[in-house]
């Protein structure tokens, strides 16, 4: 049922079994930190008094007093409230020991409780079960000069942190170059006159946030410059026969990638360029490798690494690597691990895969896709050819029909014309024959009319005198000799007398 509190210049933090007092804390303006299960109250003398009373009533009190009961005498001394009477009066001349004691006293008074410190880890050094680091901060942005303080994580605190956050997270965070927010106790070692921060706790969210913020800032910059989609928008190589591979020499990632490609009978070649996948040299080496592989005219470049902590991803948030990737002009595949966080490089590259094997599979899929496209083209060409051929056949059949029809029409016309002409000839010929017949009939009638036999047979004779036809009595005279022509002979006759018929008789 104990409740403890700690305080600094700004806040009072209450921890322990606080549930039944939550209404009181809220009335004092407290906010509950769900992650740390603590209440945070704004510092004021009145609030401190009330909180102190609540904690003591519950059997607790200031956390420093609580720790003092269980920690060694050195640590316990830190929990003492500074009082004027506890400080020795300053001597006229300090001996080294006195000065160290004085500094120790001042520091203990100023930092009697642990404080949160933010800084960057440098020179991380594992010695035995303890970790020694330098905490640093650039004096000015972009300035190489830094302020550095020694710090250490003792075995016991490390175990507590691992238990609290899990070993992987702690390992990820406690790495070179990481920005951390640490709960530190300031300790002055009088023997060597140096200050060391004992790191009691860390705030993983701060580190994650810092990394995320840096990523966000870089991404925003790339977007503003219009660089973020340059690599992503490159056309995929149809047949990536020449693959550039960037990885650490002899790494598992290298063998996984190469083995996967070779197991699927990859028909191309792999041009390898080694580079550190983590550490300070990583950005420089990766950029150099990308440039070299581009010069080697590879179809695409795979950047891959095997396992590794998610914190190592931060090397791929490096502006130099990312900007080089943007301007590279060669499709990049990043396969640098499967973590919840995605590095900036993975965000901007042409393709992002989690593992080297997956990257190899992606390349093989490119080949498969190309093969499918070719097959489809082949089918289309076949289909199109058949269609074109069928069109030609249909067209030819239509032309043939048209030709036959036109020929038939032409022949019919010619035949009709011939028939007409034939009929005309027929009619003309018949008409001509008819006319000839008419002429002939006329001639025949004339011939018949002049044929003397018909009336000679009836007894009529033809008279002639002196070679002339006698057709009037006036042409005759008595004793005149005339010839009478009969059908079968001629008789010579002498005219005895002539007698002219009276006109009356003639009319009869």
């Amino acid at each position: 049922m104990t409740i403890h509190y700690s305080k600094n210049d700004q806040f009072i933090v209450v921890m322990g079994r606080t549930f039944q007092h939550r209404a009181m804390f809220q009335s004092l303006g407290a906010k509950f930190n769900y992650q740390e299960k603590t209440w945070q109250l704004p510092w004021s003398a009145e609030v401190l008094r009330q909180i102190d009373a609540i904690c003591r009533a519950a059997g607790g009190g200031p956390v420093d007093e609580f720790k003092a009961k269980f920690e060694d005498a050195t640590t316990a001394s830190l929990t003492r409230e500074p009082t004027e009477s506890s400080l020795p009066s300053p001597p006229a001349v300090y001996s080294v020991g006195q000065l160290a004691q004085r500094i120790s006293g001042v520091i203990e008074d100023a930092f009697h409780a642990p404080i949160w410190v933010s800084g960057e880890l440098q020179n991380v050094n594992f010695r035995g079960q303890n970790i020694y680091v330098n905490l640093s901060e650039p004096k000015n942005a972009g300035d190489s000069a830094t302020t550095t303080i020694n710090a250490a994580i003792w075995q016991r605190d490390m175990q507590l942190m691992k238990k609290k956050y899990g070993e992987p997270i702690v390992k990820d965070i406690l790495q070179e170059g990481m920005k951390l927010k640490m709960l530190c106790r300031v300790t002055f070692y009088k023997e060597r006159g140096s200050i060391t921060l004992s790191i009691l706790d860390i705030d993983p969210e701060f580190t994650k946030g810092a990394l995320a913020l840096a990523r966000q800032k870089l991404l925003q910059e790339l977007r503003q410059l219009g660089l973020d989609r340059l690599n992503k928008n490159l056309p995929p190589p149809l047949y990536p026969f020449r693959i550039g591979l960037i990885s650490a020499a002899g790494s598992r990632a290298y063998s996984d990638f190469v083995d996967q490609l070779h197991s699927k009978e990859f028909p191309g070649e792999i041009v390898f360029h080694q580079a550190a996948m983590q550490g300070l040299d990583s950005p420089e080496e990766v950029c150099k490798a990308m440039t070299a592989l581009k010069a080697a005219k590879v179809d695409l470049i795979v950047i891959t690494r095997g396992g590794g902590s998610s914190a190592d991803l931060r090397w791929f948030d490096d502006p130099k690597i990312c900007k080089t990737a943007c301007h590279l002009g060669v499709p990049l595949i990043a396969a640098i691990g499967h973590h919840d966080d995605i590095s900036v490089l993975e965000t901007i590259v042409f393709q992002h895969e989690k593992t080297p094997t997956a990257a190899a599979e992606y390349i093989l899929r490119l080949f498969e896709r190309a093969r499918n496209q070719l097959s489809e083209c082949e089918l289309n060409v076949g289909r199109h050819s058949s269609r074109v051929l069928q069109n030609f056949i249909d067209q030819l059949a239509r032309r043939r029909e048209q030709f036959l029809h036109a020929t038939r029409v032409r022949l019919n016309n010619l035949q009709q014309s011939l028939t007409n002409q034939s009929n005309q000839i027929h009619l003309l010929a018949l008409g001509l024959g008819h006319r000839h017949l008419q002429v002939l009939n006329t001639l025949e009638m004339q011939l018949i009319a002049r044929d003397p036999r018909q009336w000679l047979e009836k007894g009529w004779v033809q008279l002639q005198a002196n070679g002339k036809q006698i057709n009037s009595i006036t042409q005759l005279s008595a004793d005149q000799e005339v010839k009478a022509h009969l059908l079968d002979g001629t008789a010579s006759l002498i005219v005895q007398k002539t007698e002219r018929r009276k006109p009356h008789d003639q009319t009869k």
Partner: protein
Amino acid sequence: MTKQSEAENYAHMQKSLEKIVAEISDPNLDLDHLITQVEAGYDLINKMKMRLGQTTKKIENLHAEHQSEAIR
């Protein structure tokens, strides 16, 4: 086509017939000559009628033949 003699030529025959008709129109023509000419005229008329008949038949045949070709 066999070449016809001039005597068998229809036009020639017609001219001959016309000549005969003209000749026998002379009233002073000798009766015997007249009869000879009339007989010659009838002979020509028969020949010419036969030729006309043959020609008509040939035309009909040719026409019929052409019609059957056209139908085929």
